[in-house]
Structure formats: C-alpha cells, structure tokens
C-alpha cells in the first residue's frame, strides 16, 4: 500500500464500535478503509435514538463510486451499572438509484473491560444481492479515566457473500476525547477506521 493510499485510508474511514448514533446534536465524521471499500460517512444525531447522514463510497470490488443516504435507529438499549447493551437497525438508499439499497442490524454489549459486537447487513444493487456478517470481541488491557487515552485489543471476524471469503482481523483501537482510530491487518489487507465527533 502506497503512502498516499495509506494516508487516504487513515483519514477517510465506518466503525461498528464507534457508535452509529451520537449524543443529541452530535455531528460525527467516520471514515473506513478495508478490502471492499473506502468510505466517508457523516451523520447527525438529533437524539441519542437515531442518526441520519450521507456515506460516500469508493467500491473496490465493483470499481465504482456511489453514495448512500443512511438512517440508523437505536431499537433497544439496556443499561446496568457496569454494562451497556445496544441493538441498532440501519438502512441506506443510493442517492442515484432507487434499486440500490441496504438494510441491516447490529448490536453490541460492553463493559469497561470487555466489548462484543455483531453486524448483519444485506445489500441490494441493480446487478447483485449480497450479505455481510461481522462479529468482534475485545478487551481493554487497562482502564483509563475520563479524558485518558483508551486502548482496546480486539479481533474482528468478517464474512462477505460477494467474495465468499472469511477474514480475521486482529486490531488495535485507540480513543481519546472525541476521536477514535482503529488499525487492523490480516497479512493481505488493512482494516482502518477513524471517527471524530463534534
């Protein structure tokens, strides 16, 4: 991967862990780069229950560029003193083609020490219909206080029916204040995510 491409991937990135809904009035910029696409996703959350935004994608598999209007809804949240569980519904529709859309579900359960998450997403294009699945697990090697740098050691398992392949990405996640960065690598591909909340 050339340095310019790496920088592009670093700066431009969507993350499941980086919550798809922000705090009320929060504007979030996410970028992601993996073996299937590079993307930039900007969303706004009027309440903590939902967000809407635009995702611009450079598709590596179909070798084309397109964008989605996206909507995410927090269907369920369960808070305890030491944990939080979330279940989200998501959908998006192409800004140029009505028959190009996706929908899916994702969720997470986390404590300050442990994180688990999953995603199932079905995408329909004019030519193909495919699905992608993902689970991730992680733990925090230390517990930071408010405002500290927080670090997570994680592993992500991804399967995509388009490429009919399963890949495992060990990755590191760092976040501090309003910024989050993830780096994953599986010998052939990078999986990089960036997020900042305003």
């Amino acid at each position, binding site marked *: 991967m050339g340095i310019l491409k790496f920088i592009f991937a670093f700066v431009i990135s969507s993350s499941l862990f980086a919550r798809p809904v922000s*705090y009320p009035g929060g504007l979030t910029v996410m970028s992601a780069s993996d073996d299937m696409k590079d993307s930039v996703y900007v969303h706004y959350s009027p309440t903590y229950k939902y967000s809407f935004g635009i995702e611009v994608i450079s598709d590596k598999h179909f070798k084309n560029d397109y964008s989605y209007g996206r*909507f995410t809804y927090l269907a369920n949240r369960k808070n305890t003193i030491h944990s939080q569980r979330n279940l989200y519904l998501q959908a998006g529709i192409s800004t140029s083609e009505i028959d190009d859309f996706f929908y899916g579900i994702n969720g997470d359960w986390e404590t300050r020490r442990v994180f688990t998450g999953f995603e199932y997403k079905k995408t329909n294009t004019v030519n193909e219909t495919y699905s992608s699945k993902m689970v991730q697990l992680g733990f925090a090697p230390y*517990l930071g206080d408010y405002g500290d740098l927080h670090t997570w050691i994680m592993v992500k398992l991804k399967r995509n029916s388009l490429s009919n392949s399963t890949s495992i990405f060990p990755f590191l996640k760092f976040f501090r204040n309003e910024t989050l960065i993830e780096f994953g690598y599986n010998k052939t591909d990078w999986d990089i995510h960036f997020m900042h909340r305003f």
Partner: protein
Amino acid sequence: MKYILLMLYFLTSLSFASDSHDKNHHDSHDKSHHEYTNHGEHEFYASDGRKTNIDKSIINEISNEVKNGQIALVNVKGMVCDFCARGISKTFKKDKNVKKVSVDLKNGKVYIAYDNEKKIEFEDIKEKMLENGIDAVDVEIFKI
C-alpha cells in the same frame, strides 16, 4: 425498501412516544435526593451523620475552581465509556448555572458543580441523563 423505511419511521415515532412517557413518570421516582454538607476539609457527611462514599480528589478539584457552590453527585447506569460521558458533559454545560462537570467512569458517578442560585432537581438531572441514553439512579447534594 419502502416497507423498511416505513418500519424505521414507525419505530422512530415509537421512540419519541416512549421518551415522552418516561419523562411523565419521573416524578414518582425521586426517592434518593439527600442533602449533604462538608464538615471538614475532606470529609463529607449526610445530614443524618452518615459519611458518604465520594472521590475526594474530584471534590477537591472542583472546589479549587468553584467557590461557594454546590455539587450534585449523580449515580448513573450505562456510562461504560468515555464517549457516553462526553455527551453528558456537553448537555449539562449548556446550563448557565453549571460551573463544572467531572466524571468518575470507574464508579459510574457524575459530579455536577452548580452555583448556589440553582435549585437542583433530580427530575431535571434525570431528564438530561436520559437525553444521552444514560439512566440516573440517584443524586446526593453537597455544599462547597
């Protein structure tokens, strides 16, 4: 696709209805509002003489910046990461009576320093926490 969007719209509407319902039921749950006073440099006691469990370093940090104010110590559920706490801090800082917000992630506590003019209401705090998807359990109030 239309059905999916309609479903999302329907669920969103339900969410607003649910939030409104929650707010209407706050009044019946304000059982944990205690008044505390500072009886020493680092000791905090409830009005009935019980010593309360607080992070004195946070209290001292607040006391250094806020004089003659009051602190609402809020126990919360669901505040498991820094991002959750960011939203809480931003929401409370919109209140002109709030002088400082400190977060104790480890113990699930939020310290909100107000000026003395503010009449602290647990319902107001609970509502603001809920706006961020966090559940406020109770509040203890200290004079500083």
